[in-house]
């Protein structure tokens, strides 16, 4: 379970103070598929970064599986990130010098699995995303949709409890986006909790729950209303 209570995140420079999150509270239960929507600059990505422990929160509390994350050191946070969280980015973020096999291998290396176990997991995950035959291809040799599938395989290879996706279909055409979303839906059905940031209303339907973020905190109401309001504004 992921639980944030009154989380605030403030970015400070010498002259400017920006409140990215203000008393942000949210609970995500195990197995949920939650979409996070909201206008640009509303704090969606900041929320996702804090959820993924890529950023420290300024105040409030954050518990992941009952553990207070804010009190952990770098090594423990890295371990939890490696074991419990998978990331999917809008721009895929594959490492260009590594082939598909080695890209999926990255989190497994930090996990400390032996070669046989890594090979088994990589094979299974690439089979699942339909790219088992492209193991030796480099990212530049793949289409956008295929690259995102590799990124998904990399995210789930360590069998994380949570999958955090930031605009996972933002750089894909409709057909490819659909296949990626189908994949995420299947992964969610197998028990992985998914939190997906998006600003596309069409994707919200895929989630079982939507939360709308505005001005750094969770706002009430169905997403359609908020999207409409944002569009009028």
């Amino acid at each position, binding site marked *: 379970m992921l639980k944030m209570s009154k989380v605030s995140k403030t970015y400070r420079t010498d002259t400017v103070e920006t409140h990215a999150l203000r008393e942000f509270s949210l609970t995500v239960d195990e197995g949920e598929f939650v979409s996070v929507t909201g206008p640009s600059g509303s704090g969606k990505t900041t929320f996702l970064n804090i959820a993924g422990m890529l950023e420290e929160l300024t105040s409030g509390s954050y518990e992941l599986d009952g553990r207070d994350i804010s009190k952990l050191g770098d090594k423990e946070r890295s371990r939890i990130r490696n074991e419990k969280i998978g990331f999917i980015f809008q721009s895929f973020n594959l*490492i260009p010098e590594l082939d598909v096999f080695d890209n999926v291998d990255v989190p497994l290396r*930090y996990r400390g699995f032996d070669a046989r176990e890594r090979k088994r997991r990589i094979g299974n995950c690439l089979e699942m995303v339909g790219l088992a035959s492209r193991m030796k291809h480099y990212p530049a040799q793949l289409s956008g949709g295929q690259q995102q599938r590799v990124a998904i395989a990399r995210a789930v290879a360590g069998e994380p409890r949570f999958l955090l996706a930031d605009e996972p279909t933002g750089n894909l055409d409709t057909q490819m986006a659909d296949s990626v979303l189908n994949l995420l839906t299947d992964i969610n059905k197998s028990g992985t909790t998914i939190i997906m940031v998006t600003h596309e209303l069409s994707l919200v339907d895929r989630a079982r729950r939507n939360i709308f973020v505005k001005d750094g905190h969770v706002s009430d109401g169905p997403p359609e209303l908020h999207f409409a309001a944002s569009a009028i504004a």
Partner: protein
Amino acid sequence: MIRYYFKLGILSIRANPALTALMVAAIAIGIGACMSIVTVRHVMSNNPVAHKNDVLFHVQLDNWNPDDPFDEPNEPPSQVTYLDASALYQADRAYRQTISFKTSRVVLPDSEDAKPFQELIRATTTDFFAMFDIPFKYGGAWDDAADRTEEHVVVLSSEMNQRLFGGVDSVGRMLTMNKEPYRVVGVLSEWLPMPKFYDLNNNPYEGAEDIFLPFSLAISGEWGNAGNNNCWKPTEDGTFAAYLASECVWIQMWVELRDTSEKSAYLQFLNDYVEEQKTLGRFPRALNNRLSTPAEWMVNREVIDDSIGVLLSLAVLFLVVCLLNTIGLLLAKVMRRTNDISLRRALGASKSALFAQYIIEAGMVGVAGGLAGIGMTWLGLRGIENVFAEYDFIAYLVAMDWAMVLGAVALAIASALGAALYPTWRACNVSPATTLRIQ
């Protein structure tokens, strides 16, 4: 994980060959400049008898001018007079002892087509070879009797034996010098005492003599001294006998004393000897006798030229400049890879894991820089050799040895790791969220 980091290092180097080549070149040039000078200094400061440093002692007696020391502030002469050398040698109070000086003879080779040549030779006593652990290829040193009876015997260096006898076992064969025959009793193996610790008076790097013969023979033959000579008052007349009886210093004396008690006893003997000589009107200065180990003696004689220290400082500064350049290049490389760093952080890499990855990569650059640095060092030494080509001894100073090769690699790795610390620290502290958000 170490193997994985090596793999990542190779991939990174392949991905940025130009930048890597620049870093390797910067390290190699710095190492080359530094190690060239360090090598020269290393050879200069070498102690050829380090294994006997505690038992060998150079003898100094202060027979100098009462109004003016031999050297400031109160240094006794660096050599001894014939009077003292022969008296101390005959007293035979040390475990081993040797007196010697440099002279010269005209060698007449056996073969008809070979021309005679002038050769610097060392007139010494039999213990010279045992004291300094000089290795023999054939035969051995002459015996005590030969020293006493002025026997016409010689020991040849390996090089001279090659020149005169084609390198065969020449023991028992005859050699003609200044029309007199000498019997070869020994041939040395390769022996290159560098510096020539036993006689630092002229050029410490000129190499050992190639012919050795009994001291007594040179004295009875009244052969002139071809080495250093210092006098503080005129000799009686111009005869060799007057020279032998003079206060001129021109003979090097060494003793071997096996422990501190032997050393104390010998120093006491020297002091007693000088006190006795004072009653005869010699040694007008206060007691100032010295026994110096080879290492102490080389420091005393300032074997390492001051200019080497200046050159070394400049070379180290140059290395620092090269390393600063490397730091800049590494920093540029790391900053270009912030996306990779952030992504790895997101996928579970701890700061220490990333630190290890980047340090290993820097170490690989260091090894490459070290290997290239060996090549640069070799080039640097060849450059020094060419500049000072007119000096015969220069080849000895610019010879690379394994210690220097390993030193160059170790220095390169240490330099690369040192240069990598700041960029790696920056890499580990990259905020993954900021970088990944920009993508």
